[in-house]
């Protein structure tokens, strides 16, 4: 098997300690939580940090899913499996369970964390699109305190986030709004594969029309940005197949797929449209039922 290059190992037992270590050890130090993004890269020697800071002991502090202040707050160290099994999340944001059912596989979900996934910022990573579609925000803590960043600003590009040196993501917050529905649709070549294309959609109703919409695609953009033109096309409109089709067409126009072994760019652009439509349809069904 391929194995990592040598490194020093430290274990943090609090967020403050982790931040202190990051500051002291400098940019050659990386945090490791679930390890299922970082360790594979280290084994292939694509990443060779000199120091690893194990933050798994922070589960007490950073692993939770709770309703607070009109939001659902998810600790950064919450495992994929916990998100999948959370009835609280399934009730308010079914898009989360939709997505988690199709992320990786059970043993990986036992370890991987939402913080790890978001901070890895792989363009095909699903939770980034999910949080963006839901209008979520990221809470980043540094030595001088916390700051809150909207998801589109959190993701700066492939493998690049707003988390600076000596900072860490501690929480994701998703606002609770009434009469909402959400859904995720994904095409992959096989169980556990990254998405060929995926779409997350959320709609909120005011009476019989859509008051707000969130649409974010995965794997067809350099990072999971929101499809703002598509979202805007739905505001003030009654949910209908025509409305979904129009929004999906805009989302497809605005994405930037790259051809690869999963398929050529025109196929992925088609999927962007197809999956956005399907996700919107399902999200609207759920909103109407809520």
């Amino acid at each position: 098997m391929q194995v990592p290059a040598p490194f020093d190992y430290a274990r943090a037992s609090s967020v403050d300690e982790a931040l202190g270590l990051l500051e002291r050890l400098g940019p050659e130090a990386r945090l490791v939580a679930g390890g299922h993004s970082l360790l594979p890269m280290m084994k292939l020697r694509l990443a060779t940090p000199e120091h690893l800071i194990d933050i798994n002991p922070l589960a007490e502090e950073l692993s939770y899913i709770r309703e607070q202040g009109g939001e659902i707050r998810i600790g950064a160290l919450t495992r994929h499996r916990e998100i999948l099994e959370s009835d609280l999340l399934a009730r308010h944001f079914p898009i989360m369970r939709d997505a988690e059912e199709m992320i990786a596989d059970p043993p990986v979900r036992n370890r991987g964390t939402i913080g790890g996934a978001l901070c890895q910022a792989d363009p095909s990573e699903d939770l980034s699109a999910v949080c963006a579609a839901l209008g979520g925000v990221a809470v980043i803590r540094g030595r001088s305190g916390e700051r809150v960043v909207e998801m589109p600003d959190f993701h700066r590009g492939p493998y690049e986030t707003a988390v600076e040196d000596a900072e860490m993501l501690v929480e994701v917050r998703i606002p609770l709004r009434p009469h909402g529905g959400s859904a995720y649709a994904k095409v992959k070549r096989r169980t556990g594969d990254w998405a060929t294309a995926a779409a997350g959609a959320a709609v909120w109703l005011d009476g019989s029309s859509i008051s707000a919409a969130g649409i974010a695609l995965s794997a067809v953009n350099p990072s999971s940005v929101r499809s703002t033109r598509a979202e805007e096309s739905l505001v003030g409109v009654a949910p209908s197949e025509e409305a979904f089709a129009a929004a999906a067409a805009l989302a497809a126009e605005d994405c930037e797929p790259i051809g690869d072994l999963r398929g050529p760019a025109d196929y992925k652009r088609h999927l962007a449209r197809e999956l956005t439509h399907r996700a919107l349809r399902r999200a609207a069904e759920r909103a109407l039922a809520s």
Partner: protein
Amino acid sequence: MQINLTVNGERASADAEPRTLLVHFLRDHLRLTGTHWGCDTSNCGACVVLVDGEPVKSCTMLAAMADGHEVRTVEGLARGGELDPVQQGFIEEHGLQCGFCTPGMMLTARALLDANPKPSDEEIKVAISGQICRCTGYKNIVAAVHWAAEHPQEVSA
């Protein structure tokens, strides 16, 4: 660094580099070779062990991260010389051919049955969906888990 964990109910300790993966700690340092490996990218699941009762790919965990935790390997499935029902189930239903994926499959089955004593076909297939078998086509593995569910005897987690 010194790494201390509990393996199959007993304290286990060894000096190993921080970069030592849990799978190699088990195989090379503790000489428990029942846990296998089959890839470099955390896809195949041949290395699955139970960490605090949950299936984990031991190739994607540092031994250091398991320090202080409980690990169960295939060597810890049988109790007092008696096979666990999942082990017997794999024999009864021809759930193994070359045997290489089998330790991980059995441990995942054990964890599944502990949480869900009467799983459906679909639930079993999902539970093992992160672990590759090249020999059986999975059909008899599912049958083996059903057999264990139907013959639970007195063995449990």
